[in-house]
């Protein structure tokens, strides 16, 4: 099985094949001679060149994978071919999706559906734990979709609006 793991800007291709002792790994086409063990669900141990790397692993409701290990944290996007096939294809060129940067409550809408927006213009105000935060448009365009209303509670990464 081959999966693509994107961390930050970088995507790595990993091939994972079950073997007698656990898993055989290829990284971007090159063998990665790590001894991999699933310690329990959500906990993975890799031994490579005698070094020990232990990771916790969890997937959130939006499909992002949270990894921690060695006093470091990453958020990854992991795609396997089947997910890929089922996945809606890339967004139409030029459409920007505004998603919630954190779970919270929509306090106020700052722009109406169909309105023209400028880069950096606030589209709505999200409140969490008594602090308010403006969600801004990344580009110039028209507010094509407004997926929430004032008073709605939203989850992290939930779609708020689309600008085209």
């Amino acid at each position, binding site marked *: 099985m081959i999966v693509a793991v994107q961390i930050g800007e970088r995507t790595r291709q990993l091939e994972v094949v079950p073997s007698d002792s656990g898993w055989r790994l290829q990284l971007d086409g090159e063998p990665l001679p790590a001894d991999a063990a699933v310690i329990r669900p959500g906990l993975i141990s890799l031994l490579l060149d005698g070094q020990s790397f232990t990771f916790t692993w969890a997937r959130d409701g939006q499909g992002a994978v949270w990894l921690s290990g060695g006093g470091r944290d990453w958020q990854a996007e992991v795609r396997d071919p089947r997910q890929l096939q089922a996945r809606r294809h890339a967004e139409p060129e030029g459409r920007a999706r505004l998603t919630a940067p954190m*779970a919270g409550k929509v306090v106020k809408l700052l722009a109406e559906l169909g309105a023209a927006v400028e880069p950096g213009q606030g589209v709505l105000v999200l409140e969490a734990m008594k602090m308010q935060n403006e969600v801004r448009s990344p580009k110039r365009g028209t507010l094509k979709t407004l997926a929430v209303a004032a008073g709605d509670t939203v989850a*992290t990464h939930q779609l708020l609006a689309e600008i085209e």
Partner: protein
Amino acid sequence: MFRKILIANRGEIAVRIARACRDLGIASVAVYSDADRRALHVQMADEAIRLGPAPAAESYLNIPRVLAAAERSGAEAIHPGYGFLAENAAFAAACRDAGLVFIGPSPASMAALGSKTAARKLAAAHAIPILPGTVEAVASLAEAERVAAEIGYPVMLKAAAGGGGKGMRRVASPVELASALALAAAEAGSAFGDTAVFLERAVDAPRHIEIQILADAHGHLVWLGERECSVQRRHQKIIEESPAPRLAPATRQAMGEAACAAARAANYVNAGTVEFLVDERERFYFLEVNTRLQVEHPVTELVTGLDLVQWQIRIAAGEPLNFTQAQVQPRGHAIECRIYAEDPERDFFPSPGAILRLQPPSGPGVREDTGVYEGWTVPLEYDPLRAKLITWGEDRPQALARMRRALSEYRLAGVRNNLGFFRRVFADPGFAAGRTDTGYVARLLAQTPPPDPAAERWETLAAAAAAVALAAELPAAPPPAAAATAWQRAARRDAMRP
């Protein structure tokens, strides 16, 4: 001693108090809002009573409901924790009127110290150093201009009823004063319902050092060393330690005596904290008294060996302190990190959500006071403090090394948090050298983080771990050929992305 105590709070401090009750053989009663039915403090207490809906005004801040819960449970005393009703003199009085013991100082002591101007006046009257400025709230712009000119710019405007940085303004020159005064008064009015603002000399990048005091109802009063709390973001402490690095023993002693004088002047009983500003020449100035348990009390517990929550309860039950000032012998060094669900990359903005993975650190010298657990979805309504991580060492380097170790062991996924920020702090040579003041966080964030030579290797193996986890999780793989092809398409598309 009490048979039953109601804990009028939530989160880690409610759990902490429930444990102290259990240690003393006292039954504990938790209260909870509808957002907290599954909260840890409900599980840790012996009893639990619903207060009301999620908003604090209808639950944790609602005095009649808290008192009704106390009556229903048969509790004899109420511990308010910190925040919520902890510094509300009206609540303390209402407890007394309902025949309940409020575990904290008397309403009169709280009132005497509740407003910053009242506390300044009390300090000034007892020869405790305060920053030059007005003792009362400023009555007019003209008065403000006159006093500011007298003490010299920059000056600070502060809300008399204030806290948390609201209604606070630094004024660098006379031209800014009028608008700053109007803004500070308006902010204070909307935040505290009181527009009173006073003025004092501004100290740039001061250190923030506080003294823990403990007083019983029999006239015994001790101070339990100091805590250095200068590392702050948005005027809120995030790291505290004891003893303060770079503090002369004579200064420490003078501050302890000043704190005791302030407490004595207010007839203070129970645990309290006297806060001071310390300038670069190590002159200290009284700031305010927190008439409650502090978030950072574990730091003092680890160096003195005293359980402050147990002592709060014992004092409220009328027990005398069984030790003297001379017997207070701090040992070693303790330091605390406040673990918040917040995003340091977005100006420490709160980041609630589900805790998908939580593996707290452990081992010698590590204490964790937590209010959360793996699988808990943190409600949006309350403070984003999740847990406190405290380490102790024979000396400061050992305490810091253990904190570094604990931070490297800590796993918390699902909510953005400040663990990575703390890791950076504890890797910073300036912090290790004790060069902290209230400007520390801003200075650190302005620096480029030092390169991590192992970052690439760890990231690669993290990607490999994610792939193995996915492979282990899936029931079976699709036909390899088709998969590879589909993948290659995806890889090509990824490669073309910016």
